[in-house]
Structures are given as C-alpha cells and as structure tokens.
C-alpha cells in the first residue's frame, strides 16, 4: 500500500517530494491505521492529485516570476535570447515544413506509384529530352 502511495507522490515536484515526502508517507500510514487500507487509498488519490497540481502550478508561477525579474534586470540580454530563440524556432519550423511536403507526404493525386515520366527527342545529337509537363524539355 505504501508503494502505491509513493507512486502517487511522484505527481508532486521532486523538490516538494524531497522536503515533505517522508512526512506525507508517515501521515498516510496513520491514515491506513485509522481508516483501513482501501478508504485510505481512495482518500489519498482524491487528496494527492489536486494538491500536486496546485503545487506544480505554484512552482511554475515562481519560476515565471523569477524569469521575468531576471529579464527585467538585463533587458538587452533578454531581447537577444528571445530573438535567437525565435530565429531557431522559425528555422526549424521552415525546415520541417519543407521536409514534410517534399519528402513525407504522398503526391496529391490517387495512385501516385503509377506515375510515369514520358520523354521524347532525337536519339542522336543531344540525347533524350523530356517533353512532358513535369519536366519540360529545355
């Protein structure tokens, strides 16, 4: 039963778990003694899930606040970081968009495996030239 509770505690951020995990386990053991294992486990699920979410949100809020304060202290560096990140994200998006359309997606008509390339031209002289629309002859 304690293993199940420890698994549930993984929903909390590691820092919170490190600080209060042992005590939470101790309180759960008391709860098992008071209410019985099934009722204690049900109560633990109803307790840990929303509280872990709230703790995660609180830590996220702290991190965002800390980040904004740090950006406020050195705005030049912050603007550079944002621009470089935006450039990186933009370049990646463009590369993968092109790769998706050119390499991954099937051709936009049915039975693309049956597509053939027709070529015609003089056998002698300049070799074969393609006369169809996909690759017009030069």
């Amino acid at each position, binding site marked *: 039963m304690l293993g199940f509770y420890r698994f549930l505690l993984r929903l909390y951020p590691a820092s*919170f778990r490190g600080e209060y995990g042992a005590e939470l386990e*101790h309180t759960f053991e*008391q709860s098992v003694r008071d209410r019985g294992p099934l009722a204690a486990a049900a109560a633990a699920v109803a307790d840990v899930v929303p509280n*872990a979410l709230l703790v995660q949100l609180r830590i996220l809020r702290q991190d965002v606040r800390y980040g904004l304060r740090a950006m406020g202290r050195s705005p030049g560096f912050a603007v550079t970081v944002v621009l470089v990140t935006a450039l990186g994200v933009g370049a990646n998006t463009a590369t993968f968009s092109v790769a998706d359309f050119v390499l991954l997606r099937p051709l936009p008509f049915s039975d693309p495996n049956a597509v053939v390339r027709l070529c015609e031209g003089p056998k002698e002289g300049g070799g074969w030239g393609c006369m169809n629309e996909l690759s017009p002859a030069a």
Partner: protein
Amino acid sequence: MTNYAGEAQALLPLPSATFHILLAVSAEPRHGYAIIQDIAARTAGSLRLSAGTLYRSIARMVEQGLLTETSKRPALGDDERRRYYRITPFGTAVARAEMGRLTSLLRLARASGLTPESA
C-alpha cells in the same frame, strides 16, 4: 520589538486552513499529523485537513515566514520522519491581525442584527 503590522496586513484575509494551522501551533510545536488532529478536535470534526492540503499550506507558510521547523522534539523515541513546526513572531503577528479583522467583521454583522440561528 519588531513591528510587523504592515507586512501582516498584506497577507490578510488568511485562508481558513492557514489560520487554523497557526492556531494549532500557537501554543506548542506540532508535527503534521498532530496539526490535522488538533484542527479536527477544535472544530468538532467540521474541518479535517487532508495531508496534501496541510503540507502544501505548510510549504507556503514556511516560505512566508509564518512557521519554522524546530529541531526540538517533545518525546524521546518519536518517529524520526516527524517534523515539528512552530509559529514565528511574524506568524503570531499575522494571526493577531487576522483575529482583529474577524472581530471587526463580527462586530459589523452584530450591529446589522445578524446572529447565528442557533444563538
């Protein structure tokens, strides 16, 4: 003596759980489960904090400086995982400020003729 009045006012109104936790540790340091039991006993079972709510509140209250962990353990042979928390002077100031706020509110309600039905 440090004057915490301004800082204390900034934390008001206190969440109900926070006020109850401050009351539970105002007389003596207590560990988490003892705080839960004390609150349940003082409210005749109408408020029973879950462990998650308790430790989430304790984490915030320690950050705000309302509580502090104490290394003094009341009994030998106590479970080592238990951690004891005591109220800080700032915590006492905040609890007093909240009590003042609630007293004023009660006075206003009484002046308006509002009394509990069971009174």
